[in-house]
């Protein structure tokens, strides 16, 4: 007796990984990130800091304003009048100029003139003018060393401690947000793509009238299990390729970009949880896809309904700013327990805040229960609708058929 589930699994796996779309998508994600790193390096080498100095004139109607410190790339030049400044600007002796009115201290407004058409003043220019004005106003009031502190923004360095008072291994912060976000996005893509493969597989067999040929050889449960595992294995392979490419990409990004990227780490715990949530999430979305494909006559029809469910996988991204600023909001507990949003939500939360163990256990338990329940319903739908073609049944008819089965 052949292992028919194994044969179907192998067929589905091989058939999926040989598809052009699968190969392109699997390679595209790391390649796009590589391309991004390459473009950054190229741009960095091409757009190196300009050696030219921006000459900014100023007309001082208060009197006593002088450059108090050197500014890299900017030279501030006193000009006696607006007319003279305009003349020098049009002749190219100045790049731009600004006027300090007599009521500047009360009004707080300076007028800036330039030949360039721009949306907002360049940040370097704004910063230079503000620094020039602030330092002159403070010069007679506070010691010079205080002027520097006032003009330079404060840097807050946070250290997370453990309950025992030692420095925690996981320090949180923005760098820890990047990997889970990336991983969550890849998980959402993989869940959608894998569920779509299952939908296509069953839908095509139904559309191409292969179902009865297959059911004359295998049982519906063998067919269902083989498809779930075969297509799931292909999806898992895709996720693992992406996960395996992350350390290499991080290394390249670190060398190219440096800074915060150097601090990013892919922890084994996150990787393991990522795989667990992929498997549970995939099984859930796949059984939903099987149920949809079972009641629809064509792949196109099934693909029109599937997004109602698979969009839930990406729903947590719509609230990502809420997660950044209010990570303890109750909505995240709901999203973590609700099975369709749980996989991606947990990936995102794990990177930003610690997730209580009970929530992790609850989300996995609900996912497992949903998969088993979904499988039971999908198997029933398969038996009822697999050999039916033509008009798709209405929801009420499906519920009635499920009750009667």
């Amino acid at each position, binding site marked *: *007796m052949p292992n028919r589930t194994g*044969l179907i699994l192998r067929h589905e796996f091989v058939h999926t990984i040989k598809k052009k779309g699968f190969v392109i998508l699997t390679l595209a994600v790391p390649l796009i990130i590589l391309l991004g790193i390459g473009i950054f390096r190229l741009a960095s080498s091409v757009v190196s800091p300009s050696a030219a100095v921006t000459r900014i004139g100023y007309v001082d109607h208060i009197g006593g304003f002088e450059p108090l410190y050197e500014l890299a790339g900017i030279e501030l030049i006193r000009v006696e009048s607006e007319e003279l400044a305009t003349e020098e600007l049009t002749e190219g002796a100045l790049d731009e100029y600004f006027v300090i009115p007599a009521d500047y201290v009360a009004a707080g407004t300076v007028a800036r003139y330039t030949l360039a058409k721009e949306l907002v003043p360049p940040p370097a220019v704004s910063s230079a003018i503000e620094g020039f004005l602030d330092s002159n106003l403070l010069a007679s009031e506070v010691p010079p060393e205080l002027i520097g502190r006032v003009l330079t923004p404060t840097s807050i360095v946070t250290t997370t401690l453990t309950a025992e008072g030692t420095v925690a291994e996981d320090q949180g912060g923005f760098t820890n947000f990047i990997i889970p976000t990336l991983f969550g996005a890849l998980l959402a893509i993989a869940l959608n793509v894998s569920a779509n493969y299952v939908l296509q597989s069953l839908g095509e067999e139904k559309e191409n009238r292969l179902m009865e040929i297959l059911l004359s*050889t295998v049982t519906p449960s063998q067919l269902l299990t083989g498809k779930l595992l075969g297509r799931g294995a292909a999806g898992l392979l895709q996720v693992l390729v992406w996960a395996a490419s992350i350390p290499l990409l991080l290394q390249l990004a670190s060398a190219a970009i440096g800074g915060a990227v150097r601090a990013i780490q892919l922890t084994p715990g996150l990787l393991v949880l990522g795989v667990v949530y992929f498997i549970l999430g995939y099984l859930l979305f796949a059984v939903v896809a099987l149920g949809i494909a079972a009641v629809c006559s064509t792949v196109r029809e099934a693909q029109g309904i599937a997004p109602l469910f698979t969009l839930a996988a990406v729903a947590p991204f719509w609230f990502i700013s809420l997660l950044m600023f209010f990570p303890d909001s109750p909505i995240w507990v709901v999203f973590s327990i609700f099975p369709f949003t749980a996989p991606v939500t947990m990936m995102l939360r794990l990177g930003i805040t610690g997730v209580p163990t009970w929530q992790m256990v609850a989300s996995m338990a609900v996912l497992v229960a949903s998969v088993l329940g979904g499988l039971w319903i999908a198997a029933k739908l398969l038996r009822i609708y697999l050999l039916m073609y033509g008009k798709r049944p209405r929801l009420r008819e499906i519920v009635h058929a499920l009750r009667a089965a």
Partner: protein
Amino acid sequence: MPAVEVIDVVKAFKEKVAVDGLSFSVDKGEIFGLIGPNGAGKTTTLRMMMDIIQPDTGQVRIFGEIPSQATKGRLGYLPEERGLYKNLTVIETISYLASLKGMHVQAIESEADALLEHTGMLPSKRKKIEELSKGMSQIIQLIVTIVHDPELVILDEPFAGLDPVNTERVKQLLLELRERGKAVILSTHQMNQVEAVCDRILMVNEGRAVLYGALDEIRTAHRGHAVLVESDAEVPLVAGVVERRTHKDHVELTLDAASTPQRTLAALVRAGVPIERFAVSTPSLHEIFLQTVGGDRDAE
């Protein structure tokens, strides 16, 4: 032991009784025709044999056993609603479906090659299914059905959409299967094909058997008391003839109860009619079908 025994089987879908107390058997080494109008219960009966659906009451036995996964490997089934993987090649398709039937990899290629050669399809072995014509695809479907050398072959409308050349190929394959001792069940609406290849038939209507037995016996039983005469001259109403009906190339004479075909032939010869052909009138299966299930119903 018969290849198939269907014993008083009933199957209903909600209020609709699709099969209503059907009983018949099919032996090895025969081609059995299952015929009937639309919705007669033929496909439901075949699906119960294949264990795709189960009877409400009654029994189906395949080689003496209740249909199960074990019996499926001994069967070849070509359903009416059929297709193939469009993106796979011919040999990939045959290999996958044959492996599900339990064939070993080494055996699949040699058997597939032999059947492809036999049906003239060997040049298409590496072609994708989507590149084949409809007729060629149907030949591949038939090959998929029989490549694992099943003992019982069930074919639902195997001639649908085939051109005369491919129809003849399929007929030859069926006759060869019978010669090799296989049991073949043929469900079709093409009565001429049933007459050409079937040994026995079961005609079903509204889920019940209306005719069952050897094709020759059924035709004999439905034979009217009439003769066919083909002649260049006019055929007269000789003694014992009560009605004369003229057809395109022959005349049909209906005899009275006391007459026999032999007496009528003698009377025609005596009357000097030059006879080119004389035969006892036997109704075609199509005519029997229409008579039995009602002339107002079209065959599927």
